[in-house]
């Protein structure tokens, strides 16, 4: 424990998880922005674009999900 009055204490894994959530958030937003744009330009393409979007969503979202799963792992390691 530090003697500095304003020392921030706690688990740095919490910060790590917060940073890890930025990338996938931006990525998923970009995917669906592209789908909305494409549907606006050509409404007949909506179903094809949507099915591609879900595949891309699954691949991008895995980084966010790995983040939350590893947050528990790091919390467990820090606690033990």
């Amino acid at each position, binding site marked *: 424990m530090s003697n500095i009055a304003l020392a921030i204490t706690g688990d740095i894994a919490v910060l790590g998880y917060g940073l890890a959530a930025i990338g996938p958030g931006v990525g998923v937003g970009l995917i669906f922005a592209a789908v909305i744009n494409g549907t606006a330009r050509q409404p007949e393409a909506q179903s094809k674009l949507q*099915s591609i979007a879900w595949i891309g969503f*699954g*691949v991008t979202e*895995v980084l966010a*999900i790995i983040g939350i*799963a590893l947050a*528990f792992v790091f919390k467990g390691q820090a606690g033990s």
Partner: protein
Amino acid sequence: MSAGVPTQFQPPGPQNFETPPIFSGVDWFTKPVLVATLSVIVIVWFFWGASRKAAVVPSKLQFAGELGYNFVRNSIARDAIGSRDYMKFVPYLCGLFFFILFNNVAATIPLIQFPTFSHIGWAYVAAIMSWVIYNAVGIKKKGLWGYFKHQTMPAGVPVWLMPLMIPIEFISNILVRPVSLSLRLFANMFAGHILLLVFVLGGEYMVFETGSIALGGVGILTFLMGLAIAGLELFVQCIQAYIFVVLTAQYIGSAIADEH
């Protein structure tokens, strides 16, 4: 839990996923094993019933069975692998899809409410099977060196870039793919189950185990929000089953693809 006495809230975590053996003598027969066995029985019974008296004008069960089978065969297998070789892989992809789908949705079915793939061993096995299949098929079609060349040295890349390309492509095509397949399925089921637990356990704690009425009201709202989250989780469960099988089909397709 005695009424009116505040207790400390235990946030849900990995300890909520411990599944004790159902019969005290048999250590390995836990809830995920039971649910997986049940899923196999239900899937076999469904498809056997759907294909039993196959008529030109289908009955409702046959129609449902054909709908499910055609979904995997056409929109997953044929589109990803190509119309020449896809039939060999349809049994595996179909079985994999319905197995993962049932076991995922079991997390929402009352009385079961546990996703099998939130124990990572199950996800590892499914990913390793897909990995062995797409590598074995690629090696059988092109030979060991030809397959390695196909995966790590894409066409049209200048020679001086190869020392950079080969390790990157090897790691991403051969080493990382099974890891990401298994981790994606496991982490989605794990995190989804924990999300549901946060809402339900938090709601229950706020309603019953804190002293205050205001928090009790918030607890009821939390519990209702948990219902909405259960709907979201049902959606995620179906999507994750679909993505696992689509990615497996795409890996198989790219392993046996011809050079242009």
